[in-house]
Structures are given as structure tokens and as C-alpha cells.
């Protein structure tokens, strides 16, 4: 199995699962919608079909029962309820987990397989059983019929080699199925080619074709009417076969075959030696389990005897069965007995013939003829719309002749005569008589049970139409202009562009060199011109790649309807989720980084924010709470807001809690403003919930949110009004691929500092630096700011230099809301860089967030200010 195939499967399956989940939830909210149900069914069906390509039977099985259930819902047998939604969502979750496992290891764990099996069983027992009730009757009937067919079907028409193949497969554990396929007469008009379908049957062992009608005069026949039937043997499962014949299911019959029925020795019974010794020896070998010798003896005897003899045929069967001893012991014994008596073998467990007289009770006409009648009736009905009289009379002729032919082959002269009389009176203007005759014959010969079948061609016709439209729709779905590309490939392109930019920048250095060192001005000019062209292209390329990496926030938002639905159910709260601006785009990494913090926030809103319905009513609020997920662009960042109309955050409570937990001092408690207090929820270890639920409230939530957002250079804010609601705002850079840095110099080396943390750059004279308890400080706009030498922080044993006026260059940074001054040697302006994180042994150097290559080929170390200060604190 090719890896790319399975990769494709994984990608597609995730998409399908996502859509399935969405539809399941929409259905629950907006009630049954035929189109949605159809779409849902199609997705599950496709998913099931795809899973069948690989060897994950438990997944296919689970999807299969889900599909069945959805089909019942679609047909209206079962009405959609939140119970069904729950179970289907759970089933899809299992499938989703399976996909994850397949992606990780290519295999499914036993526990997951088991839970899939259990879920499939649960669906079956809860929902499918009740609908099956009406099926057993039909099944019973068809079973009886099958037994008759089994008796009627003469397996000896199948050549021995194919029967042997089938028996072999059966003994390997497969179920052999006999398929009787009787294509409808009009099938050619529908573009069907039954032979093609038959030839492509999965695990086809044997097939044959025959005419189901006698053609008295071939020259009069309608060559576009299918009168050919097919019979085939296959070792594929019934599901596979149903899938294969899905468009003609009403025209096929599947019959499970007991393999012993295929063991029919054949050939000349007279002549040839009878080796009595062999029979007794054989019994001995079987008894002693002496397989190898038994096999050799049989083989030797086969070689000696004429292949046309009955005796040899038995030997051939025995030879095949030896390999599957001991389970074939009884059959071999029966064959040996048959060898003694020269009469057909009797297998002890063969089913007794049942209900052969049932056939007599049957209708006046056999099914085949009724089908003919029925199809002619349909043609007749359509004849009204034909205007050309010549054409009409031709069609009538063909109808009459096919019915006549049918009657001739049925050997019913009295009906034939009756029909001939009627047919003489028929003209293109008036063919009602014929119509009536057919109708009478059809209804007369049909007991109630059969009426269903008589209308079936019509029904299948519409079904087929529906299937075609379904097909078309699914085709439309697949022919989208979206190209799915592995992220790694984009990243590679991104890296290449990065290198390209660096290479391009070297051109300007080269131009300078040509002028300054070699003194060739002309060349320098041309190089510069070329550089500008390359520069433009590279910028556009970079932009284009950025665009590729952009994904809409909906990829994250789409999981929330489900989350909110499940949680609100669990909490017994009524919540409405509104999503706004889901088309807002941002870099894929940013979007992915958003997912986890958002889940925490929404959970918190649900758990702590939204009140239970009673409480809401008491407060005079609408019973159903609202959570709004909003995304928008703001300058260079994407802003996500989670707004709820719940109870809000009580600043007093928060302050008290923080104090109790020792997170703030008593002084803080007194002085802290309400707006500030609200932000205390971001402190590690903070939780106001009285008890931790399994949703949130373990005191890790908001802290995790802040850490995650800050890791990606974003920020998080909270605003809240008591009893009115809370708004949490996440702000993240649009793209993390290009970073904007301020370049500074210290001890002769250049460093980059992310521009987000730079507040300002100032010059501070030596005199203004005061040392307080061994720590350097300065006063900047009436605020005391701690100062650090960058060389100290980086452990470089050099002192910082000042400019001619004796002033230090100080970079004022904002770290976690606090201002800090870093003394450096020089400022160099800003630059856009492509930041590459450290790999390997350098990963632990947290004070640098990574490196970037500058245009002149030099490497720029990019400082992580937070870690820099943190590291310095630890040192001290």
C-alpha cells in the first residue's frame, strides 16, 4: 500500500469528519433538513468507502453502522434526536482517534478497535434493532427462497477448477457467495454494462452469462433490451459485494454457499481400476493424521489414472482437502465412501431440502416474465408522449413481440392465443386494450407481496436518477480548486526564499565592492540595477508564500460548536454560540497557536461565566446565554475576542482569592484598582471556582492561556463587568515568519531585539545612573527604571561604551508590563528578518530566540528579552 495513498486518506478523512460533525450539530439545532441529511450520508458513505481501501475493518464497520443509522434518519424511519447526534458524534470521535493513530503508527491499537466495535454494537442495539424488526420477515422469506435456489442452482455447471478454487478460499476462512444478477431490460439505456460490472466484481472466482428469454426469431429482436443474466461466485464479503453492486441492488441476489455443495466429483464412472487398498489406507492415514504420506499417495494415484474418470475427480478433491485436515475429515470420509459405492457423496451436515412445493404456490407467471410485462408497461406509458405514428407502431410491435416470445417460451398456448387476439386490435392510436391486458395480468398474478416488486423498476429508475444527481453533487465537491499541500513543503519553500533573500542582498555588497575595491563603476551600476529587479521579485515571492500559509481562523473556530454543545449539555446550561469573522486569515502557525488558549477561554466562559438558566432568569437575563467568538484584523495582528454575557468577574473576590493564595500582598489588596484586579486571573495557580470541575477550574487555565499567547509574541487582555459579562481579547501577530527586530551593538557584536518589547531608546548620561542597594537605576520621566548592562547579562567581560558626550545608549523594554533599561553600545535601526530557532545543543540557550542571516552573510543573534532578564535574576 502506498504511503501517499494513506496520507491522502488521512487528510481527506479529517475534512470529512469535520464536515460530518458540523452537519450533525447543525441538524440538531435547525431540525431535519433533507439536503443536509443527504450530504451527511454522502460524507459518511465516502468515508466508509475510503476506509475500505485499507485494512481497518473495525473502522469500516463502525462507519457502516453509522451510515445505516443515518440512512434510516434520511428515510424518515427514525427521527433525528440529540441522542442520535450524541452517539454519532461519539462514533465519529472514535474514527477521528483511529485516524490519529493511523497517522502516528500506521496501525490501530487494540483498545481503540475494541471501543469501535463496542460503539458499533451500541448503535446496532439501540437504533438499528427496532428497524430490523420488519426485516426478519422479509429475510425469512428470502432465506427460504435462497434454499430453493440453492437446490435449484446446479453447481455442476461450474467447471471443477473454479469450484476447487472456491472451496479452497472457503477453507481459508472466506464466505463464498453466489450472486445472481438479472440486469433490467432497460439497463443499456442507462449506460450500464452488466458484463463490465460482473468482470470487476471483487474476488471474482467464476462467472457465466446466459439468456433469460428464448428468442424465437432473432431478426425481430430488440438488440438494446438486455435479456442476459449473470451468475457468479465470489469470495468477497457481502458488504463489498453490496457496495460493488450498489446501483443495481434490486437486480442482484446474494446467496451464501456452503462449500461442501461445490464438491461434486464428476467424470466417467465406468472403467478404471478401483484401488480398494487406497480407500482403507486413506482412512488409516486420516486416523493417524499422516498427512504427508496421504497426500503423496493421492498424488501418485492421480498421476496414474485418467483425468476423465469419476475416481480421479474424487482423488483431486481429496488432494485439495488434505491440506485442511482435520476440519475436512468428514468430507474426505464421504468422498471415500462415494468411491466405494460410486454414488455421489453425501455430506452429513448438508442441509435438508426444504419447501420445494413453495414454487407451485407461486404466481401464474414466473418473476422473469412479470419483469418483462412490467417493463413493457413502462414503455407503453411513455408511448403517449411519442408523436411519430411510425415510431409508435414500431415500438408497439416490439412490445407485442416480446410479450409473445415470453408466452411462447412459457408454453402457455391459451394465454398466447388470447394475447394474439388482443394484439390484432391494437393500433398506434388506440393501445389501451394492450395496456389493460398487461395491467390485469400483472395484478392478477401478483399476490400482495409481489406488488412491491412490480413497482420496483419505476422506483429504481428514480433511485438511479437520484444517485446520479448525488454523484454529480459529490463530483462538484471533489472538483474544487483547492490544492492540498503538505506543510513541510511550504516550509521548505519558505526557507529557500529566506536563503534567496540573503543571496540577493549579497549583490548590493558586491556592487559596492566593484566600485570601491576594483573601481569599475559601470559594473557596479549594472549590478545595482539587477539587484533592484531581484529585490522586487523576492519581495513578491515572499509575499506569495505568506499568502499560502495564511489560513482562516475558521479552522480553529469550527471545533467550538461541538465543544459548546457538549459542555453546555454536561453543565445543564443553555448557551448559544455566535461566530463572527471566521474568514479572517492569519499564518497557519498563529492559528494553530490560538487553538489551545481559545479552548481554555471558552471553557472558562461556559463553566464560570454563563449562569445556569434559573439564575439567569432570576437576574432578568435571557435564559439562554451567549458566547461570541469574534475575529478581526488590527494592523499587523489578528485579534480574537471571546465575549460572554455571564456573571462577569468579581474584582473583590479575585483580589481576596489572590491574597489568600499568597499571590499578592495585603498592600496590593488595598490599593489595586478593579481593572487591574481582573487581570489577576492570569496569575499562575489562580482559580475562583469553588470546586474544580472536569472542565476547568484547576487553576491552570488562564495562566496557560497567557503563556501560550506570549510564546507567539501575542498578548491577552480581559475586561469584565459584574453580572454583565466578560470579554477576553487575544492579540497575535499575523505572521510569525518574518520578525521585526531592532539591531543593537554591544562589545563589537550585533544583536537583534524583537521590536514588540522595545518601548523606546534613550541616551542616559553616566551621572543620571544611581546605584540603589547595588542595583543600577535611572529616573526616566519621573519613573524609576532598573538598568542592566547587556555585556553583564551576556557574560561578556567588557564594559559598555558611551558616546562622545558620555551618554549610554539605553534600550527601554517592556517585560510583563514592567519597564527595564538595557545599556548597549550602539543602536543600528530596525530590520525584517526570518528568524530561525536554535536546533540541537543550542536549543537550551533560551536567552536567544534564534538567529537570522543578514544580507552581508553575517549571523544575527536575536535576544529573547524576557529570558534574558530572568536568567540574570537567577544568576544573582
Amino acid at each position, binding site marked *: 500500500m502506498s504511503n501517499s495513498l494513506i496520507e491522502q486518506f488521512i487528510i481527506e478523512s479529517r475534512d470529512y469528519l469535520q464536515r460530518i460533525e458540523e452537519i450533525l450539530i447543525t441538524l440538531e439545532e435547525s431540525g431535519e433538513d433533507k439536503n443536509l441529511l443527504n450530504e451527511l450520508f454522502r460524507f459518511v458513505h465516502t468515508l466508509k468507502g475510503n476506509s475500505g481501501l485499507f485494512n481497518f475493518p473495525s473502522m469500516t464497520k463502525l462507519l457502516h453502522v453509522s451510515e445505516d443509522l443515518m440512512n434510516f434518519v434520511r428515510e424518515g424511519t427514525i427521527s433525528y434526536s440529540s441522542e442520535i447526534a450524541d452517539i454519532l458524534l461519539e462514533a465519529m470521535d472514535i474514527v477521528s482517534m483511529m485516524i490519529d493513530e493511523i497517522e502516528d503508527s500506521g496501525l490501530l491499537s487494540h483498545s481503540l478497535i475494541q471501543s469501535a466495535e463496542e460503539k458499533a454494537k451500541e448503535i446496532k442495539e439501540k437504533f438499528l434493532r427496532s428497524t430490523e424488526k420488519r426485516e426478519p420477515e422479509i429475510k425469512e422469506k428470502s432465506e427460504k427462497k435462497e434454499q430453493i435456489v440453492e437446490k435449484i442452482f446446479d453447481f455442476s455447471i461450474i467447471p471443477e477448477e473454479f469450484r476447487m478454487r472456491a472451496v479452497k478460499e472457503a477453507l481459508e476462512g472466506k464466505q463464498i457467495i453466489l450472486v445472481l444478477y438479472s440486469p433490467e431490460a432497460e439497463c*443499456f439505456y442507462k449506460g450500464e*454494462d452488466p458484463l463490465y460490472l460482473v468482470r470487476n466484481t471483487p474476488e471474482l472466482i467464476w462467472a*457465466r*452469462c446466459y*439468456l433469460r428469454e428464448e428468442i424465437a426469431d432473432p431478426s425481430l429482436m430488440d438488440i*438494446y433490451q438486455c435479456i*442476459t443474466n449473470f451468475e457468479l461466485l465470489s469470495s468477497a464479503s457481502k458488504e463489498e459485494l453490496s457496495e460493488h453492486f450498489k446501483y443495481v441492488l434490486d437486480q442482484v441476489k446474494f446467496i451464501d454457499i456452503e462449500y461442501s455443495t461445490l464438491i461434486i466429483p464428476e467424470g466417467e464412472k465406468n472403467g478404471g481400476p478401483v484401488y480398494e487398498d487406497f480407500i482403507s489406507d486413506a482412512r488409516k492415514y486420516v486416523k493417524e493424521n499422516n498427512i504427508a504420506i496421504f497426500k503423496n499417495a493421492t498424488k501418485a494415484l492421480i498421476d496414474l489414472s485418467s483425468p476423465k474418470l469419476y475416481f480421479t475427480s474424487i482423488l483431486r478433491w481429496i488432494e485439495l482437502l488434505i491440506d485442511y485436515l482435520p476440519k475436512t475429515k468428514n468430507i474426505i470420509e464421504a468422498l471415500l465412501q462415494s468411491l466405494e459405492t460410486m454414488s455421489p457423496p453425501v455430506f452429513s451436515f448438508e442441509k435438508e431440502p426444504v419447501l420445494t412445493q413453495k414454487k407451485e404456490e407461486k404466481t401464474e407467471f414466473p418473476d422473469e416474465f412479470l419483469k418483462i410485462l412490467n417493463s413493457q408497461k413502462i414503455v407503453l406509458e411513455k408511448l403517449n408522449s411519442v408523436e411519430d405514428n411510425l415510431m409508435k407502431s414500431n415500438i408497439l410491435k416490439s412490445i407485442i413481440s416480446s410479450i409473445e416470445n415470453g408466452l411462447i417460451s412459457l408454453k402457455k398456448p391459451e394465454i398466447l392465443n388470447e394475447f394474439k387476439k388482443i394484439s390484432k386490435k391494437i393500433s398506434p392510436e388506440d393501445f389501451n386494450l394492450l395496456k389493460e391486458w398487461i395491467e390485469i395480468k400483472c395484478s392478477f398474478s401478483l399476490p400482495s407481496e409481489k406488488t412491491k416488486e412490480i413497482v420496483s423498476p419505476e422506483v429504481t429508475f428514480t433511485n438511479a436518477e437520484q444517485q446520479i444527481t448525488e454523484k454529480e453533487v459529490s463530483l462538484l465537491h471533489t472538483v474544487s480548486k483547492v490544492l492540498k499541500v503538505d506543510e513541510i513543503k511550504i516550509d521548505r519553500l519558505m526557507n529557500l526564499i529566506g536563503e534567496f533573500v540573503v543571496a540577493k542582498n549579497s549583490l548590493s555588497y558586491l556592487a559596492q565592492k566593484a566600485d570601491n575595491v576594483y573601481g569599475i563603476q559601470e559594473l557596479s551600476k549594472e549590478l545595482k540595477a539587477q539587484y533592484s529587479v531581484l529585490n522586487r521579485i523576492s519581495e513578491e515571492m515572499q509575499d506569495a508564500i505568506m499568502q499560502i500559509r495564511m489560513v482562516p481562523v475558521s479552522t480553529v473556530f469550527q471545533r467550538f460548536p461541538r465543544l459548546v454543545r457538549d459542555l453546555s449539555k454536561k453543565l445543564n446550561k443553555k448557551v448559544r454560540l455566535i461566530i463572527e469573522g471566521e474568514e479572517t486569515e492569519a499564518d497557519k502557525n498563529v492559528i494553530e497557536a490560538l487553538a489551545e488558549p481559545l479552548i481554555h477561554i471558552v471553557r472558562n466562559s461556559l463553566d464560570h461565566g454563563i449562569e445556569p438558566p434559573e439564575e439567569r432568569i432570576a437576574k432578568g437575563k435571557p435564559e439562554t446565554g451567549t458566547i461570541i467568538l469574534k475575529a478581526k484584523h488590527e494592523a499587523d495582528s489578528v485579534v480574537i475576542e471571546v465575549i460572554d454575557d455571564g456573571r462577569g468577574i468579581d474584582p473583590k473576590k479575585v483580589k481576596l482569592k489572590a491574597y489568600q493564595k499568597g499571590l499578592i500582598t495585603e498592600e496590593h489588596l488595598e490599593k489595586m484598582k478593579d481593572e487591574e484586579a481582573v487581570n489577576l486571573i492570569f496569575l499562575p495557580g489562580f482559580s475562583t471556582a469553588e470546586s474544580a470541575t472536569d472542565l476547568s477550574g484547576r487553576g491552570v487555565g488562564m495562566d496557560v492561556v497567557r503563556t501560550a499567547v506570549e510564546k507567539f509574541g501575542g498578548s491577552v487582555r480581559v475586561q469584565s463587568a459584574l453580572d454583565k459579562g466578560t470579554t477576553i481579547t487575544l492579540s497575535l501577530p499575523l505572521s510569525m515568519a518574518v520578525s521585526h527586530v531592532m539591531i543593537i551593538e554591544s562589545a563589537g557584536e550585533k544583536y537583534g531585539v524583537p521590536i514588540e518589547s522595545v518601548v523606546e531608546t534613550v541616551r542616559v548620561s553616566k551621572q543620571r545612573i544611581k546605584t540603589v542597594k547595588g542595583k543600577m537605576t535611572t529616573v526616566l520621566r519621573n519613573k524609576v527604571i532598573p538598568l542592566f548592562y547587556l555585556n553583564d547579562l551576556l557574560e561578556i567581560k567588557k564594559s559598555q561604551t558611551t558616546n562622545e558626550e558620555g551618554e549610554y545608549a539605553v534600550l527601554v523594554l517592556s517585560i510583563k508590563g514592567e519597564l527595564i533599561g538595557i545599556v548597549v553600545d550602539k543602536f543600528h535601526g530596525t530590520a525584517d528578518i526570518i528568524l530561525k530557532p536554535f536546533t540541537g545543543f543550542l536549543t537550551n540557550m533560551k536567552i536567544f530566540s534564534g538567529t537570522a542571516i543578514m544580507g552581508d552573510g553575517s549571523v544575527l543573534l536575536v535576544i529573547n528579552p524576557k529570558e534574558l532578564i530572568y536568567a540574570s535574576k537567577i544568576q544573582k
Partner: protein
Amino acid sequence: MPVKFKNNVAKFTDLLSIEDAETLFNWFIKKKKPKIDLSKLNHLHTACLQLLLIFKPKIIALPEQKDLKMFFNAWEET
């Protein structure tokens, strides 16, 4: 043309579609002792197969394709 007629023999090659059924039908009507060569046949539409079942021409060469050959094997025997 996937069918080539030569005297009483029709040689089928590659793929016979439903469009070929009529030509084949007309040929069978005319010929008293039709013979067919299926050695180079890959697939034939059921409508054409049906004509072979009806007119029972003598098969002078079976298809090389095994799964297709099977259909004619069975028919020869019956």
C-alpha cells in the same frame, strides 16, 4: 473499427462498445455460419455479448484475457 469482417469470420479487437452492436447484429442476420475470433478482445459490451449468445457463432479463438475467456468457456460447454 473494433470488428473486422472477413467472409464468415468476425475478428474482434480491443473493445466493443454498444455502438458496435447494430453492425454486429446486421452481420449475424446475413451470415448463415458465422465464426468469431476473440483472441485480441479485451472487453465487449453486454449488448454485443448478448448477440453472441443469441446467434451462437462458432468461436475459432477464445479471448486471451482469462476472466473474459471464462464466459465463453462456460457457454461452449452448455
